[in-house]
């Protein structure tokens, strides 16, 4: 463990009512980093967060804060006073915004007069100075979450835990709060651990992402690593690899693989040998759609004619599924849909680069 | 886990507190409290409201008057839950004494019972001289009769009269029972315009609101006799013997007997009770 690690846990086991919910052999967080824990609902993200904060009883494992074991009552209390936590709901107290922000300091027994400048500073940092004497029952959702953040930072924590902090906010409020939060954290070099099911937030805010599945961390790495090189199917599906194709490696040379899918072949990159059973993942953003008969340029190694099977609007884009004897999923902009007059049943050409294909070993005995 | 410790600590504290309260001997000094079990008629007339303060001032005892009805008063005495009784149910009292529950039974005063009813007098008993004859008439006409039905002295007297008339009113549709005290039974009776047996004292104190007339009075059998009885200390060690004795002697003292003889005159025109201390028993 390097001197840079602020929090470390080993052999962490948590059970609820006899059923194991968390099994983490090893996990550490570096000082000053922003780490996100992502995964589908029910997989243990919040439980892991609460265990790391020492708020949930664990059935096994050790927690180390700055190299020292956190075990019994006094150590635990001291540890908790160095951290802060913000939940999806602001969970404010029934008093004024000022009193809410001062709550952490009041708990530590700091005198009211000394507290004032700190509170005012934190209120200003999160843009709620004008709400100081307002009752917490009479503010909007965004203002309430800002108050919760100001309350968390008022105690100058070394470590902040965020449990789905933006899930209840509308996009513009969320963006504004993220901006303010980022500014405060950079200024104070606070370490942050965030649990979220929004992979976009995880991608753009984190230095590292930990992907959880069934109470275990199945992959931990930089956003790029996790997004483009998922270590198994579950991670791949969660990070948005929409096309999954099972096949067998037919040939391999200079790192370029020819993978047989049905009676066709696609070109991919990876270190596998002939005969290996593999699964190919392709991000929908990497699949380009052209009108039928269009001669794609040579940079795309994989060119397949096919028929549009299904069109699904998703936000500002369209998910277009193309049947090329195997199904390819592509994301197409509204503009492109109109330019190409894409409709169901239309003949199109789909193309993608070999480097856009991510290959992992197929652990199933039969094809997906 | 720490929460559970807190909970157990709290429960322990509560248990200790109750044990502490339970074992503290609060009154080690001589008994000051005197529990007087008596009838609703003596309380409702206000007689005890006059006599008790005098007694308390004189002796320093604190009288707790529990007005329940002769039957229940004697039941309390038999259990040792009262110190002295002031009741008016002679037959039951004799039984009480013969069972060794009381000592020193002394005659205090009397008044009489009257048969009252609606001015319209549907059974036509007004002016009759015999109570049992009047009851016979009520039964024959099927006129509604309201009984206290609570084993009080009044109730006992009422049953005696029915017996003398040779009638068993139990279960008859015209015979109703309130289970309440004298004042309340009179109110119910007035409201429903029924006949009832009442002691004169309570009737007079409520007369102005009732709208009922006295229909039969003066029959010797309607005499209502009050005795004071001390609960037997030999049977119950916790009885306040000094207080009981003091109260009994107080009730038969000349001073009190004089007060009794004039009680109610200014308000109702005639006294509500007649003092009898020292006189021979009526039977």
């Amino acid at each position, binding site marked *: 463990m390097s001197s840079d690690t602020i929090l470390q846990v080993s052999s962490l086991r948590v059970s609820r009512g006899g059923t194991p919910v968390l099994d983490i052999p090893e996990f550490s967080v570096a000082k000053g980093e922003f780490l996100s824990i992502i995964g589908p609902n029910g997989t243990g993200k919040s439980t892991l967060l609460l265990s790391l904060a020492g708020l949930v009883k664990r059935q096994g494992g050790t927690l180390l804060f700055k190299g020292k074991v956190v075990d019994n009552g006094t150590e635990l209390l001291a540890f908790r006073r160095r951290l802060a*936590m913000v939940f999806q709901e602001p969970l404010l107290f*029934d008093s004024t915004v000022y009193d809410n922000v001062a709550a952490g300091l009041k708990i530590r027994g700091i005198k009211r007069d000394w507290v004032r400048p700190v509170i005012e500073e934190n209120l200003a940092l999160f843009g709620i100075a004008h709400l100081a004497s307002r009752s917490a029952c009479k*503010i909007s959702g965004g203002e309430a979450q800002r108050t919760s953040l100001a309350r968390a930072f008022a105690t100058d924590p070394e470590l902040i*835990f965020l449990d789905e902090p933006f899930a209840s906010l509308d996009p513009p409020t969320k963006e504004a709060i993220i901006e303010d939060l980022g500014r405060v954290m950079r200024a104070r070099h606070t370490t942050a651990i965030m649990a979220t099911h929004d992979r976009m937030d995880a991608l753009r805010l984190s230095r590292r992402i930990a992907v959880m599945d069934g109470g275990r961390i199945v992959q931990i790495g930089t956003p790029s690593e996790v997004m483009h090189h998922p270590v198994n199917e579950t991670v791949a599906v969660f990070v948005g690899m929409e096309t999954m194709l099972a096949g067998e490696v037919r040939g391999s040379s200079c790192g370029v693989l020819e993978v047989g899918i049905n009676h066709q072949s696609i070109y991919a990159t990876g270190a596998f040998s002939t005969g290996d059973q593999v699964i190919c993942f392709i991000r929908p953003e990497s699949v380009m759609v052209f009108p039928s008969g269009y001669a794609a340029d040579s940079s795309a190694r994989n060119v397949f004619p096919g028929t549009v099977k299904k069109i699904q609007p998703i936000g500002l884009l369209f998910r277009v599924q193309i049947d090329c004897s195997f199904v390819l999923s592509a994301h197409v902009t509204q503009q492109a849909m109109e330019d190409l007059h894409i409709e169901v049943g239309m003949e199109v050409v789909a193309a993608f680069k070999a480097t856009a294909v991510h290959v992992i070993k197929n652990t199933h005995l039969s094809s997906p | 886990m720490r929460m*559970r410790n807190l909970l157990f600590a*709290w429960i322990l504290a509560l248990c200790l507190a109750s044990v502490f309260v339970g074992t503290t001997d609060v009154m080690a000094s001589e008994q000051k409290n005197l529990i007087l079990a008596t009838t609703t008629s003596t309380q*409702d007339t206000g007689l005890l409201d006059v006599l008790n303060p005098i007694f308390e001032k004189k002796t320093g005892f604190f009288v707790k008057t529990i007005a329940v009805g002769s039957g229940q008063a004697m039941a309390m005495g038999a*259990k040792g839950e009262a110190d002295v009784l002031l009741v008016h149910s002679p037959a039951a009292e004799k039984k009480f004494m013969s069972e060794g529950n009381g000592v020193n039974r002394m005659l205090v005063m009397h008044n009489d019972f009257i048969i009252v009813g609606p001015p319209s007098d549907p059974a036509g008993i007004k002016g009759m001289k015999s109570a049992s004859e009047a009851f016979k008439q009520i039964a024959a006409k099927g006129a509604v009769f309201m009984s206290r039905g609570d084993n009080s002295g009044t109730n006992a007297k009422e049953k005696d009269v029915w017996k003398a008339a040779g009638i068993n009113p139990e279960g008859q549709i015209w015979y109703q029972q309130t289970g309440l005290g004298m*004042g309340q039974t009179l109110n119910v009776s007035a409201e429903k315009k029924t006949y009832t047996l009442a002691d004169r004292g309570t009737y007079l104190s409520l007369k102005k609101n009732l709208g009922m007339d006295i229909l039969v009075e003066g029959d010797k059998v309607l005499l209502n006799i009050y005795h004071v009885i001390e609960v037997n200390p030999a049977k119950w060690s*916790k009885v306040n013997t000094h207080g009981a004795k003091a109260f009994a002697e107080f009730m038969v003292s000349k001073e009190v007997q004089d007060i009794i003889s004039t009680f109610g005159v200014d308000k109702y025109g005639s006294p509500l009770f007649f003092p009898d201390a020292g006189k021979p028993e009526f039977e």
Partner: protein
Amino acid sequence: MDLILEGIKKAIWLLITLDPEVLGITWLSLKVSGLATFISLFIGISTGTLVALTRFPGRRIVVSLINTGMGVPPVVVGLFVSIFLWRNGPFGMLELLYTPTAIIIAQAVIATPIVAGISLASIQKLPEALRLQILALGATRIQMIWMLIKEARLPLLAAVMAGFGGVISEVGASIMVGGNIKGYTRVLTTATVMETGRGNFDVAIALGVILLFFTFCINAILTSIQQRERPR
């Protein structure tokens, strides 16, 4: 009818002129029920809060007991308290029967389950994560309990008001353990029953009006508490 009107007229007169007996009975009622409620406040809120926050085997049974206790008829409480306080009962040597203390005890027994039950529900109604949030702010267990009680202060006040309302209007147990002794254990409810029985409607109505006044005040406070919002 004019009986009642007479009664009302005289009742107003008694109230306006602050008739000493009526005042004395009112003051005694307030003292007795007030003290009983005070006791039930401590025992009820602490017990309700601790049961709400602790997981232990048999918790369900305890919660059922508390809820059952809320519905026990007051006269039954009066019966059992009398039995305990009878001279020949287990606590007879304390000579508490037919004293104001006995009424306070009986009323405290009646009110405590009410306060405990409503406190239990109020604390349980707080957001589950609030407890974790308070701990994450660095609170000790005691601080956390205190802060949760503060957060639920209005429903808890409603609990206390419900307890007070229940006991100031109670008559059965108060007669059984108090004995309705003039100037000593005669409270509003027991006096009303007695005065009605005696036919003193003016006094009975005056006492009834006072009781109604208290009921009204309690309900006004409860209503204003009910209508308030909680923060997010």
